């Protein structure tokens, strides 16, 4: 039998001391004094550890007491007199303070400088390279794997001619080339089929921009001369930016929203 069990066995057979429970109670009553002497007498790291533990327990106790003290009876909140007195007609209005207006204009200027524009789709799912390209095997034994075929919609300009097939690394299949996009005006809510002039920026990287790949979130420039927009100076606007809003490789068409 394991040694601890002998103690238990004895207890079961003969019971405990007659004053066992009395002594236990008194010992527990003295525990706080003992703890306190230990805390006061301990030196070094041990003392610090005990002090830290005591403090965290004290803080917790204070919190629970405070919680209990919160009465459920509601009292009228004493409204302190606040600063910045305004007359009654300005009370319900949130007027931007002068400081705020100034900081807003500075922020606006900084944004313009940095070239960060507000677009309808600020974040798009990044497209991985293996999703974008398919490896084309070439060569007599089909062992060379340096060619890639683009699997997403692309735009090539009207004056596009392929590089000599032996040397072209990126193949843009003609089936996935688009020239027109369905562009929606955000405020007027009407859609026009406009010609694409060029791909301005693809969020997945500058390489895709240069290839002319159009995925969701790409900024393209479209020909808006049909719409008849005129600048305040009187010049006719013929090109505007639009952002692609669908996945053209799945749908077979490009839907975009005009950036006004």
């Amino acid at each position, binding site marked *: 039998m394991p040694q601890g069990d002998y103690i238990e066995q004895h207890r079961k057979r003969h019971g405990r001391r007659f004053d066992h429970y009395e002594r236990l109670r008194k010992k527990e009553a003295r525990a706080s004094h003992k703890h306190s002497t230990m805390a006061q007498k301990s030196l070094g790291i041990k003392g610090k550890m005990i002090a830290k533990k005591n403090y965290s327990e004290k803080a917790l106790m204070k919190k629970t007491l405070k919680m209990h003290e919160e009465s459920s009876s509601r009292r009228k909140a004493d409204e302190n*007199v606040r600063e*910045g*007195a*305004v007359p009654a*007609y300005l009370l319900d209005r949130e007027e931007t303070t002068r400081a705020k207006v100034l900081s807003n204009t500075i922020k606006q200027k900084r944004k313009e400088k940095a070239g960060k524009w507000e677009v309808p789709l600020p974040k798009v799912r990044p497209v991985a390279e293996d999703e974008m390209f398919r490896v084309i095997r070439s060569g007599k034994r089909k062992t060379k794997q340096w060619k890639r075929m683009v699997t997403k919609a692309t735009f090539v300009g009207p004056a596009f001619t392929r590089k000599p097939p032996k040397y072209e690394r990126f193949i843009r299949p003609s089936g996935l080339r688009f020239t027109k996009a369905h562009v929606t005006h955000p405020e007027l809510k009407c859609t026009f089929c406009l010609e694409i002039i060029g791909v301005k920026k693809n969020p997945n990287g500058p390489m895709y921009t240069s290839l002319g790949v159009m995925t969701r979130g790409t900024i393209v420039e479209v020909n808006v001369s049909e719409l008849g927009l005129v600048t305040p100076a009187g010049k006719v606007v013929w090109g505007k930016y639009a952002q692609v809003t669908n996945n053209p490789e799945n749908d077979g068409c490009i839907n975009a929203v005009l950036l006004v």
Partner: protein
Amino acid sequence: MTMDTVDAGMGKTVMCLLTDPEGTNLGSAMYIPQNAGPLQLTHLVNNFLNNEEMLPYSFYVSDEELLVPVGTYLEKNKVSVEKVLTIVYQQQAVFRIRPVNRCSQTIAGHEEAVLCVSFSPDGKQLASGSGDTTVRLWDLYTETPLFTCKGHKNWVLTVAWSPDGKHLVSGSKSGEICCWNPKKGELEGSPLTGHKKWITGISWEPVHLSSPCRRFVTSSKDGDARIWDITLKKSIICLSGHTLAVTCVKWGGDGIIYTGSQDCTIKMWETTQGKLIRELKGHGHWINSLALSTEYVLRTGAFDHTGRQYPPNEEKQKALQRYNQAKGDAPERLVSGSDDFTMFLWEPSVSKQSKKRLTGHQQLVNHVYFSPDGKWIASASFDKSVRLWNGVTGQFVTAFRGHVGPVYQVSWSADSRMLLSGSKDSTLKIWEIRTKKLKQDLPGHSDEVYAVDWSPDGEKVVSGGKDRVLKLWQG
């Protein structure tokens, strides 16, 4: 009274018909020489009306004021001599107020921004409420502080004098109303509670309806208006019905209370039992301000430009007389300015459809005010302009541009010839109605101007704002 009856063929006379603003003709069409100007026409009208003293009149031909001789007007506008020219005459105020042009005193005293100022109806006392929770009374002769009335717990948002000048009542942001004795500057009784949120406006019952002034109505953000009795010191009736904050309240001369609210409606209440009479709908956004055509007369009660004091029993009659004179035969008109950039002109006792919609402002309309004679409406808007409209038809007259910040409040001079506006750009501007131009620019405040008032006797102008000082301006 003989007029030169020269033949029309001589080309020197023109056929004219003089009518008053309500449309009744003064005599029949008559020949008037073409070199007759406003002065001669004034003589003519005075004679026709058998006035004892020469009263000044202004003349309008098709809504344009006639400032030059009739002949010149005809040439300029190429009106045919053969048609009868209708000239509308309007009586102007007998007294003339000097324009204010200098700041006579800058009185400091308030510890926080000054939120509201008001002259007493006789123009002898001045009270101002501020964000430091005090109401201060100022002595106009020495231009120094008189009393500091403490008793409010939060910002004092509105002050209102009773039309007999004996009581002063102020409302605060914590929803309590304090009554003050203006002679001693003491709190009368304890603050009146009842409203749960801040007080947006106070309006007294007119003197001609109840002679010692007892009742007044207050509006609050909590959506109800309450009628209080100052002698009983409690709320008699609670007018609840609005779903959002009540932004302004006016007690009309015919005993109806008008309340405008953020729930885009104006409600009319009768005062004996507090029942809703009518609801005026039309606005698309919050109603910021209401104005009645007889408002100025109701505010000043029995006092007029002569500055006479009347014993209590005569006050009521004199006030009634002034009220009837200002009102004329037409029903009382109400104009409301709203956050939807437009105003509506109503004749509330006639119909619940609006008479006209006054559009033109490009930002919300903060304050509307009828001129003391009820002929003009001035509106102050956050689009930095003050617009002047015809007070009877509601037609747009002119826009006063000059401020570079939102215009907060306007105030009229007692003779209706000048208009004062205070704005966020810390300047006050006085506009002349006759020439429709800027008369005087009053810079001097160092921060936004929140409240302006012109004294009923026309002597002084007071303005207070965010820079915590009160400025008194004089002619």
